[in-house]
């Protein structure tokens, strides 16, 4: 076992250390970490660290702590938390760990052997912070291989187990029992969408259209379109010249991709062909076009044909619907984020209400799909990481 952060030793041993909700030592530590992550050189190399640093600023931390407070109960840390973040999203482990630490929990985070790039920069930053010794004793990040014995022991130790990484990971980890009083917080396979109002697009001026596509490009390309909240299918909503809107959208997208200098490697380009041809072969798509190696555009036969699998970086199936409400029957519990452009708040409100919680957890503007929030996947994370004691006198 490799200790990436924290004191090496028995992870499940009882501890004398006690942290509180919003413990000043943790707040201080996270604020210092934020400063390290926000240094211009680092943020330039790994733009996602910029967003993470922003999330960890003192003002944000205070807001998160405030969300944990209640008038009707005393709020305490949940206890011990075992985190199993996704293998390869370099920053997500910090978000869930940081919120849990802020709630005063003792945490063990299992870091994938595949973690690289931005994750390494994060460990450097974590280990460089001048911290109270209690931090290293209560917050540990470790890497170990496929060792069921360790996973089982940590599962028995935890009051809360946080499992990311999709359905298969959740099923595999759940073979290891928790204590009767403990529970799981799971982040299974998710699909996310983009919705674009055709009349809204028409009404927007060129600058607004370009800004929208820039936001969409960040949402889609930052994690190779594979983050759970990355938009996959684009729904064109409403009536008008759909082809013209789509053409302009794709032209602008290619422009942004060019400006950023993003590339798609050969294997990914082949991957996209395999999936795109697969959708054509089964009749789900009627047109497949490759305006550029970095963009694969497909025309779906209907909004009921949307693929829920990842197709590749820069693969955009397009479907049409008359109104947002027409999408409601197609949305499922697997669906997480809908990023939007060109709709009125009333239209979005009506859509959210009609969904009725049966699908879609987040409705956000283009450019915000990847922005992590304390409410995620339908959970109020600060509430999940704490426990309540009521006192009647």
């Amino acid at each position: 076992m490799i200790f990436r952060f924290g004191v090496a030793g028995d992870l499940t041993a009882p501890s004398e250390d006690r942290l509180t909700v919003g413990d000043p030592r943790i707040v201080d530590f996270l604020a210092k970490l934020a400063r390290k992550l926000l240094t211009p050189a680092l943020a330039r190399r790994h733009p996602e660290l910029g967003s993470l640093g922003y999330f960890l600023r003192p003002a944000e931390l205070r807001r998160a702590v405030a969300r944990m407070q209640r008038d009707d109960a005393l709020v305490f840390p949940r206890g011990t938390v075992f985190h199993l973040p996704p293998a390869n999203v370099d920053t997500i482990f910090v978000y869930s760990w940081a919120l849990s630490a802020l709630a005063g929990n003792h945490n063990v985070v299992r870091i994938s052997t595949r973690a690289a790039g931005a994750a390494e920069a994060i460990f450097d930053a974590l280990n460089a912070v001048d911290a109270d010794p209690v931090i290293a004793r209560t917050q540990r990040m470790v890497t170990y291989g496929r060792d069921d014995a360790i996973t089982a022991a940590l599962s028995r130790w935890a009051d809360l187990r946080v499992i990311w990484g999709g359905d298969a990971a959740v099923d595999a980890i759940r073979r290891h029992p928790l204590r009767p009083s403990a529970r799981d917080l799971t982040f299974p396979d998710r699909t996310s969408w983009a919705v674009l109002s055709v009349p809204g697009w028409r009404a927007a001026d060129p600058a607004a259209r370009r800004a929208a596509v820039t936001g969409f490009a960040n949402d889609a390309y930052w994690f190779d379109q594979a983050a759970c909240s990355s938009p996959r299918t684009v729904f064109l909503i409403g009536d008008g010249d759909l082809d013209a809107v789509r053409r302009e959208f794709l032209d602008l997208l290619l422009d942004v991709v060019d400006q950023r200098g993003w590339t798609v490697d050969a294997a990914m380009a082949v991957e996209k062909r395999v999936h795109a041809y697969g959708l054509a072969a089964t009749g789900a798509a009627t047109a497949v076009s490759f305006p550029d190696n970095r963009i694969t555009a497909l025309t779906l036969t209907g909004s009921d044909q949307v693929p829920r699998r990842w197709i590749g970086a820069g693969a955009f199936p397009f479907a049409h619907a008359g109104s947002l409400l027409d999408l409601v029957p197609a949305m499922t519990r697997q669906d997480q984020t809908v990023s939007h452009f060109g709709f009125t708040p009333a239209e979005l409100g009506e859509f959210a209400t009609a969904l009725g919680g049966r699908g879609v957890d987040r409705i956000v503007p283009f450019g915000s799909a990847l922005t992590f929030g304390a409410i995620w996947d339908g959970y109020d994370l600060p509430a999940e990481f704490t426990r309540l004691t009521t006192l009647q006198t």
Partner: protein
Amino acid sequence: MSVFTLPQVDKEAVLLPQLADLTKHHRANCEPYDRILAASGFAEAADLSALPWLPVRLFKTLELKSIPDDEVFKVLTSSGTTGDVSRIYLDKAAAAEQQRRLAATVQTVLGPKRLPMLLVDTKAMLKDRRSFSARGAGVLGMSTFGRDHVWALDLDGRVDLAAIRGFLDQHGDQPFLIFGFTFLVWLHLYEVARDHGLDLSNGILIHSGGWKKLVDQAVSPAEFRSRLAGVGLTAVHNYYGMVEQIGTIFLEGPDGGALYCPDFADVIIRDPETWAELPPGKPGLIEVISTLPTSYPGHVLLTEDLGVVHGIDDGAWPGKRFSVLGRLPRAEARGCSDTYREAS
């Protein structure tokens, strides 16, 4: 009779109408294939490079066949890197034709008569259903071109020196055929012949399989050839082929160092950025073209192998001279969703 006869211009003139007809044939008989071509807007091709190619991996995810179910005579499978399996459907005519063309291709270097054959493999491998699909099919397919077969490895996969010696005592003074996977030949034949002074000078070696293990040991194709020459083995023919284009093999010429296309097949190297055909000297993805696939739409396939054409009509045989450079490294997307299946 050689199947390596056509200069490039003549070959393209012969192949283009046949492949255009095949494309029409498969569109008419394989609905998913027709849908793919319709969705990508394909009408017709003015030259070989404009023919619509399918990624070879598509045979792992889709059932693609141009024959009715009751005419399926054989289903070939290949194990893939991701655990998915390609399924190739042959009817009786296609199965016979691929065997006939394979025979014609290897007879170019073996002559018309069946030769005594040393198989650098273990018979036990045929029993293992898992490895059978890939390795076993290769060995079985090639074994029909030899006689008096002897396995160079025993049932536990160890070198059977007595068997090899027995084979050479009986057949070593006349031409004989050696077949095996490249890495096994290196490890279990070359090194044994070197250490025990075996005389392989009448052998004709046909070998295939990835070079990766050998490259890891710093053995290049040129080094492989020259070291084999050191044990007398100078008739050495590497080949490149795949189950998705069964019956078509691209064979190393007598001068060594490059593969050639039989008259009914060709290769195109594509730029993975622009997908345009690349000129000789520029490495890219290998597209394999063959007129043999009549029962499934596998006549124009984009492989995930990298290769380079060295020259055209300038080698021992006419047509394109090319090398396989290795596998395209697989991309890993970064994501938290269903692309990641790490269990614990």
